[in-house]
């Protein structure tokens, strides 16, 4: 037995030496920066373009390698706080990851480098500025940008003798057209198989009534009370459109479709087949749609209760503060603002390019192989500029919690466990309790919180008296734009 043990030990030592030798052979001798991102086939081309761009610009020679195994946020967090994060990491601005990472201090402040190397916020969509910066400092730059709209499968409407919807529509028109569609499409079928839309965007619907989850200074959740019932209205509409009008499918109906594979899961395939005449997504869905075949595509805004809007978000890259090659990693962020990279995004359809200038190119507007998409491209770019607002993120609460509570409210209403009024009130209470708890646990937040609370009082007073409000008082990106569009700002 002893000999077996020694033999195994010996084999392990040999294997270790072998591994080290093999790794040495694959090493190019250049500094290596690791990019933690998803396993998208487009990354290979993006890496090649980066290498040639670095050479063209005369920047230091280095090697960019992919790390697609650690994109999960919990892995990123654990590795980063342990000092072994990837040099450059992707992060999704939508769910509040950036605020979370910023709080942990794992992101390198690139404000000055961005100005020097040309990737400051002026090089991307202005509506994204609130996502790029935390506390006035820039930490990220977009890899691509997503402004959500409904993609429309025009063939699905035409098949039933209906015209596709207009670019902008209100709630009543959405409902009228939805009823028409599902009635015509499901006539004579044993079970409902066709729906006008796969879902509605709850946040945009709430915002279209002039409300947001937080108040102007992000110090409190404000979803109840007079004039703040946007989310409640969205919950009521969602339930009605699922259970009464069947314009959008229930979770059970979605599960019942047997298709469930490929990028985007069942949704995109069902859109292609016409079971969902519209899907709510970003331009990146084109990557998958192009694989399905030609569809007569269009894009329309979400239905609105008076204020058309959509959500803009980004898959962005950050430089890890504990990285070995931070200077080289910053070049990668500069590369994301370059023409070379932006044209990659334009050509592969992976959402909007970071720099809006490239959405004006002919390659973006009229890709020659895909004339069926020509109605779509300009609309996405236009909406990203005109009506897009980032998801609101408060520095006083974990934002994943906030949107989790909001989704809980939706589920509670759909499960008939709470009325819309109860669920919204409960959601608001939970968010505010979480803010209070956070302030107790993180006393450093308190001075800024108190300052914002004072500002909020002033804002409320001004609003009561109808006075215009200084822009600087508002930190909530939604309210900034809403107030501006309503002419309420000084």
């Amino acid at each position: 037995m002893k000999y077996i043990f020694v033999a195994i030990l010996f084999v392990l030592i040999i294997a270790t030496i072998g591994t080290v030798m093999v790794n040495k052979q694959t090493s190019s001798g250049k500094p290596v920066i690791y990019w933690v991102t998803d396993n998208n086939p487009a990354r290979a081309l993006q890496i090649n373009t980066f290498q040639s761009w670095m050479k063209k610009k005369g920047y230091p020679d280095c090697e960019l390698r992919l790390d697609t195994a650690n994109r999960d946020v919990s892995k990123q967090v654990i590795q980063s706080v342990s000092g072994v994060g990837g040099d450059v990491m992707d992060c999704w601005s939508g769910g509040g990851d950036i605020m979370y990472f910023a709080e942990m201090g794992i992101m390198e402040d690139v404000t000055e480098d961005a100005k020097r190397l040309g990737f400051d916020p002026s090089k991307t969509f202005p509506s994204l500025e609130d996502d790029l910066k935390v506390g006035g400092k820039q930490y990220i730059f977009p890899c691509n940008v997503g402004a959500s709209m409904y993609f429309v499968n025009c063939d699905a409407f035409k098949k039933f003798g209906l015209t596709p919807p207009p670019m902008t529509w209100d709630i009543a028109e959405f409902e009228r057209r939805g009823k028409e569609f599902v009635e015509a499409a499901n006539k004579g079928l044993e079970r409902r198989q066709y729906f006008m839309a796969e879902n509605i965007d709850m946040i945009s619907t709430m915002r279209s009534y002039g409300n947001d989850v937080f108040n102007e200074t992000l110090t409190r959740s404000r979803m109840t009370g007079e004039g703040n019932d946007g989310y409640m209205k969205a919950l009521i509409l969602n339930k009605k459109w699922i259970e009464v009008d069947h314009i959008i499918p229930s979770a059970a109906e979605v599960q019942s479709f047997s298709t469930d594979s490929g990028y985007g899961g069942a949704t995109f395939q069902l859109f292609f087949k016409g079971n969902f005449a519209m899907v709510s997504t970003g331009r990146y869905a084109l990557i998958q749609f192009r694989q399905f075949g030609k569809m007569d595509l269009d894009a329309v805004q979400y239905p609105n209760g008076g204020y058309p809007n959509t959500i803009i978000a980004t898959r962005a890259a950050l430089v890890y503060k504990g990285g070995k090659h931070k200077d080289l990693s910053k070049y990668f962020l500069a590369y994301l603002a370059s023409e070379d990279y932006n044209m990659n995004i334009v050509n592969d359809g992976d959402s909007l390019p970071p720099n809006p200038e490239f959405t004006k190119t002919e390659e973006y507007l009229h890709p020659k192989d895909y004339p069926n998409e020509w109605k779509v491209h300009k609309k996405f770019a236009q909406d990203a500029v005109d009506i897009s607002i980032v998801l609101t993120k408060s520095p006083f609460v974990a934002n994943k919690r906030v949107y989790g509570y909001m989704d809980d409210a939706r589920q509670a209403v759909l499960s008939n466990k709470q009325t819309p009024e109860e669920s919204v009130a409960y959601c608001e209470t939970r968010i505010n309790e979480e803010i209070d708890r956070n302030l107790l646990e993180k006393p450093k937040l308190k001075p800024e919180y108190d300052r914002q609370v004072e500002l909020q009082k002033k804002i409320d007073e001004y609003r009561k008296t109808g006075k215009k409000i200084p822009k600087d008082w508002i930190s909530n990106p939604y309210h900034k734009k809403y107030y501006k569009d309503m002419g309420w700002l000084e």
Partner: protein
Amino acid sequence: MPALRIGIEMLSKKTSNTIAGIAFLSPNILGFLAFTTIPLIFSMILAFSNWDLTLHNMFHDDTIQFVGLKNFIQLFRERDFWKFLGNTLFLMMGAPFAIAGSLIAAILLNKDLKGKKSGIFRIILPGAILFVSCVMLTLVGMGAAALTIVIVGAVGMTLISGILFGQTVYRTLFYLPNFTSGVAVYILWKKLYSPQTGPVNAILEKPVAAVGNIVNATPSWVISAGEWLFLIIGLFILMKVLKSLFNHWKDGDLGTCGLGLSLVFAMMPFFFAILWAPSAAAKFAVPAIATAILVFHLARSLRTRDFPCTTWHGVGTGFMISMISLVPMFMLIGFAAAIANLPVLSADGLQPPEWLSNYDWAKPAIMIMGLWGAIGSNNMLLYLAGLSNVPPELEEAADIDGASPFQKFWNVTWPQLAPITFFIVVMSVIGGLQGGFEMARTMTQGGPWGSTTTLSYFIYNEGFATGRLGYSSAISWVLFIMVFSITMINWKFGSKYVND
């Protein structure tokens, strides 16, 4: 001198053997220390700290502070904690059925089929199941759900393989859930539960519709009687349990505090009936009757006590009796509520459940899946091993005495399996309290509305959604205390029954 030399040689041999032994064990010991013991101790310390990843890491100067019991106080004030604890306990109600299932599976698989020309496994059972499968296929219209056909085909193949190769095939197949990747199984079950196109509902659709029609044609008083029948059976069990508890108390096997605690547990389902029972009469009558039964027993028993004992004596016995009775009582109240709701549900035609997407059905759906997995688990193997160790002479003696198969099982086999059952119960309780994470993450993301979020999923969410690792550790240790307490009770009182 030679004696000393021999002594040194022996000592050196002993030392050398010890070193060799430690060397063999060292990889495991080191791994255990690095990945279990040290993190365990670390997490215990963390539970009393304010460690928050957003504040305390290599990029911040803030120091971790000890906050005493603050995390625990916060936890007990947290509404979600109680909800998720309830979910965990609800899912654990499937454990007795899973244990029973694995025992039945082991008994079936323990039958020696070889040499028998017409064993039940070889002809009758496969034939019957294949026949039922064909009927099912006809009912669902052959092409209605491809997955149904695949599954029925697989069952058919299994049976044919069983006929050809005997018991080994069945043993392997029954054990299959245990070595199949969890995530793959969960995705498969998600498909099985698909509300409109899944095979489960394809099979249920027509029988459920028929039940709906029957319910619609049934007078409301019959439905009401059905509801009450289940409630009365539940109350009858309560009566028996209370009688047993008071008898233990009178006989000096159970102290007064033990009795009080057990009574609280035993009465619990009937106070939940206030929430669950749909008819107003049942809402109030059931707790009232339960209270009346309790008062009756109190009045009858508290006057005299034959054998007094200390206050806390026998607390485990009482706890075990009341806990074991909880499962059937809760289930009967659940059935009663379901029956009472049938007319409303059937008004527009009764539909099969929406399983994972329905708040009320998501937990039972996961329980059923867990039951499937548990029947063919290591528990079945343990029972198989236990059954092979039952001395044949005991069974022969029972045969000579003219015992029926059930009497033989109850009086010979079952007592022989007691140590294994005890071990399985302990492990099931531990696994049940700690489990549910993979299922929740893969199948439901803890929804709808948190109905399938278990404590383990809650720990993960707390740790990674907000970075509160101290708080998350506190939840883990509360879970540990629960597991440890129940295991200790099991150990102390369960092992007594095993040894008896």
